[in-house]
């Protein structure tokens, strides 16, 4: 029944009007982020050319409106244009020589071992051992490897408070007035970048090892599957290693070496083939999943010392198939935001507060499970669904943060466009070697842009009239058609010598390299290192003259490289951090940064020291779009309600501009310029 307002009693009518006025005023108080002076929406991987195209197609009305109100420019990214590098520059205003992040992967030259560039886990103190129990005398921890002060720390020094939601390369989060939650660079519970689990009764269908995940054999007996979640090692327990026991058997009276056993959490799956559903029981929780249904977050516990120390985690289950094959996917074990075992927020209880408002959420590195899709554990459509779960969590978080505007500055990060552009490019690009015709997913990337346009529309409604709104990305995107096995190229050019050339394709981490005769090697996605005496474990190139001459030679050779299949030049830029960057960290990165030209990227195998036979290979992976190339190919975006005064703004300029919005002069050492016109 429709209410007829005209028939309301006048007094009643005035009372209703007053009530409406109060409600609206109240709603404005609650719903507006008017208190925030500056709001930044960080959209990882949003590309200016695609944005322009979708705006012109009328698919992004809110971006169009913001461009009309203010301005739009491509935003120069860093070299290399990798997210950890670019976001570090955005937040510190420094180039990689200042913040020390040159790649996703760095190399420890004393061990010739690659490691995650963003954070490192540090061992605890020497333990006290009692039988099979082991008690560390002091706690270990994690250390952020990025150097430099972030702009929100600088704001904090002036008494300004910031909310920083999932800024990459901020794990553990730096201390500053306000609140922050870590993002890319945050490990999962086992300390990896994200390791999913996959349970199947057809283990033989899958390779022995799969990148980014573990596959476990299970057996269904009487429609019941018993399985375990495999957690981190229990540092409170220890058992003799097999090697120690073998030595003992050989008659060596050794003092034993010990390993920490992995903690596990049992779960049971009861299958109902008729209903095409299953009941999962884990701890005291029960849930029912239909085939191809995702669970909500499920709490998991790993008991380090029963009744004393329990490590909390959270996972989502996806019942992929019940029969004829049983297939169950489980997300990487999350650091539980409700009870985090590692510092993911600042203040420490903020993740718990968010959790009480929003429910549990993905906390690790990059939630969108590209590795599961790449390896066929999730199909493209399943990956899309999983990506949407992560997106909806971010969307709810943005809404919550806008409704609780307690700070002066707000940054919110979305990673959906980045991961979608990596994984869906081959559906929209007919020239891609891995092109797949899919009438729905060919529109996947435009759809993701539209979704972010919706977020922007919501944001514009919620912020105050005087708030400076900045929408930016760390880099753009390009197709990834062809792989370059850079280590194989170095081998062919004589810069690398193998111990056993007949075993070129076996082993990783440079295990077959004869370091005494090797001059240079490639590691990470854009890095090339000289095997330098006094720095590398078995350096072979002398410092100064020999080193400089080798760099000159390599630079020339890289730029002259040709792909004989199409006569293209795969490398269009060579930078030397020691020559081209500023700051105290510039000597700690690679000796050369390789900028690949349009369509090229470093191969899948080369970054971790493998040597496939061919130098150039077509990329048939679902990971079909990329940005780890010549930075000039892949600028990010800058859209704002202010005028942009520079024709070519860069990420480091934005840092300075943010400080200037608050009237703070940038400290010395920052390379950027203020590029936003003050609000009139």
């Amino acid at each position: 029944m429709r209410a007829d307002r005209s028939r309301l009693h006048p007094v009643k009518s005035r009372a209703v009007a007053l009530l409406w006025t109060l409600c609206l005023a109240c709603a404005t108080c609650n719903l507006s982020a008017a208190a925030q002076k500056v709001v930044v929406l960080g959209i990882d991987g949003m590309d200016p050319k695609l944005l322009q195209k979708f705006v012109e197609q009328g698919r992004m009305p809110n971006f169009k409106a913001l461009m009309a109100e203010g301005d739009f420019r491509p935003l120069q990214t860093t070299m290399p244009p990798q997210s950890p590098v670019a976001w570090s520059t955005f937040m510190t205003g420094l180039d990689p020589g200042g913040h020390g992040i040159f790649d996703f992967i760095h190399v420890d030259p004393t061990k010739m071992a690659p490691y995650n560039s963003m954070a490192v886990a540090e061992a605890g103190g020497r333990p006290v051992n009692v039988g099979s129990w082991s008690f560390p005398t002091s706690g270990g921890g994690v250390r952020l490897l990025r150097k430099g002060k972030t702009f929100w720390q600088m704001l904090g020094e002036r008494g300004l408070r910031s909310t920083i939601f999932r800024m990459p390369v901020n794990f553990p989060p730096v201390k500053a007035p306000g609140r922050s939650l870590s993002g890319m660079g945050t490990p999962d519970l086992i300390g990896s970048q994200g390791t999913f689990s996959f349970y199947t009764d057809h283990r033989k269908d899958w390779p022995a090892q799969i990148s980014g995940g573990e596959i476990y054999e299970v057996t269904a007996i009487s429609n019941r599957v018993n399985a375990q979640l495999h957690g981190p090692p229990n540092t409170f327990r220890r058992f003799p290693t097999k090697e120690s026991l073998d030595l003992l058997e050989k008659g060596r009276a050794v003092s034993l070496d010990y390993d920490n056993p992995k903690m596990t959490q049992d779960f049971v799956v009861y299958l109902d083939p008729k209903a095409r559903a299953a009941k999962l029981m884990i701890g005291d929780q029960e849930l029912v999943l239909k085939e191809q249904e995702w669970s909500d977050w499920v709490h998991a516990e790993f008991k380090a010392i029963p009744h004393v120390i329990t490590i909390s985690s959270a996972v989502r289950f996806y019942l992929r198939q019940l029969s004829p094959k049983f297939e169950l996917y489980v997300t990487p074990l999350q650091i539980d935001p409700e009870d985090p075992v590692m510092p993911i927020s600042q203040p420490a209880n903020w993740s718990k507060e968010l959790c009480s408002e929003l429910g549990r959420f993905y906390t690790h590195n990059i939630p969108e499970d590209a590795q599961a899709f790449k390896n066929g554990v999730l199909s493209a459509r399943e990956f899309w669904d999983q990506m949407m779960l992560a997106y909806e969590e971010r969307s709810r978080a943005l809404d919550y943060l806008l409704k609780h505007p307690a700070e002066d500055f707000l940054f919110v990060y979305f990673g959906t466009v980045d991961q979608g552009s990596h994984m869906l490019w081959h559906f929209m690009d007919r020239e891609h070697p891995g092109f797949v015709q899919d009438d729905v997913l060919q529109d996947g990337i435009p759809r993701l842009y539209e979704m972010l346009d919706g977020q922007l529309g919501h944001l514009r409604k919620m912020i105050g009239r005087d708030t400076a709104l900045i929408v930016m990305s760390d880099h753009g995107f390009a197709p990834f058609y062809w792989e370059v096995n850079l280590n194989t190229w170095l081998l062919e050019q004589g810069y690398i010598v193998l111990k056993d050339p007949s075993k070129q394709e076996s082993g990783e981490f440079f295990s077959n390299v004869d370091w005494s005769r090797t001059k240079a090697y490639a590691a990470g996605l854009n890095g090339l290192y000289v095997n330098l005496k006094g720095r590398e474990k078995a350096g072979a190139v002398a410092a100064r003259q020999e080193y400089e001459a080798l760099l000159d030679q390599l630079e020339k050779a890289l730029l002259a490289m040709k792909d004989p299949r199409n006569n293209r030049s795969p490398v269009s830029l060579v930078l030397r951090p020691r020559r081209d960057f500023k700051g105290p960290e510039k000597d700690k990165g690679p000796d050369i940064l390789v900028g690949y030209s349009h369509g090229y990227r470093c191969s899948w195998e080369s970054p971790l020291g493998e040597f496939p036979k061919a130098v150039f290979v077509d990329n048939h992976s679902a990971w079909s779009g990329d940005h780890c190339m010549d930075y000039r190919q892949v600028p990010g975006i800058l859209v704002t309600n202010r005028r942009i005064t520079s024709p070519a703004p860069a990420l480091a300029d934005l840092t300075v501009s943010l400080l200037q919005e608050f009237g703070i002069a940038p400290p010395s050492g920052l390379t950027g310029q203020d590029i936003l016109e003050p609000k009139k």
Partner: protein
Amino acid sequence: MFEPKVKLDKALYEKLKMYSTIAGYSSVEEFVQHALEKEIKQFEGAESEDEIRQKLKGLGYIS
């Protein structure tokens, strides 16, 4: 090939010699190498290749 040498106190060397025999090691070198590797491991928190692989390979950019 060049092999690094380490000077040891004579009394310590004699002890090493005695205990390496008692402990069943084939030489003093084997015993010293094993003892030092164990000691260093505690400081390095040495990761196996499998551990390095697992930690890095969740990253979608590599195989």
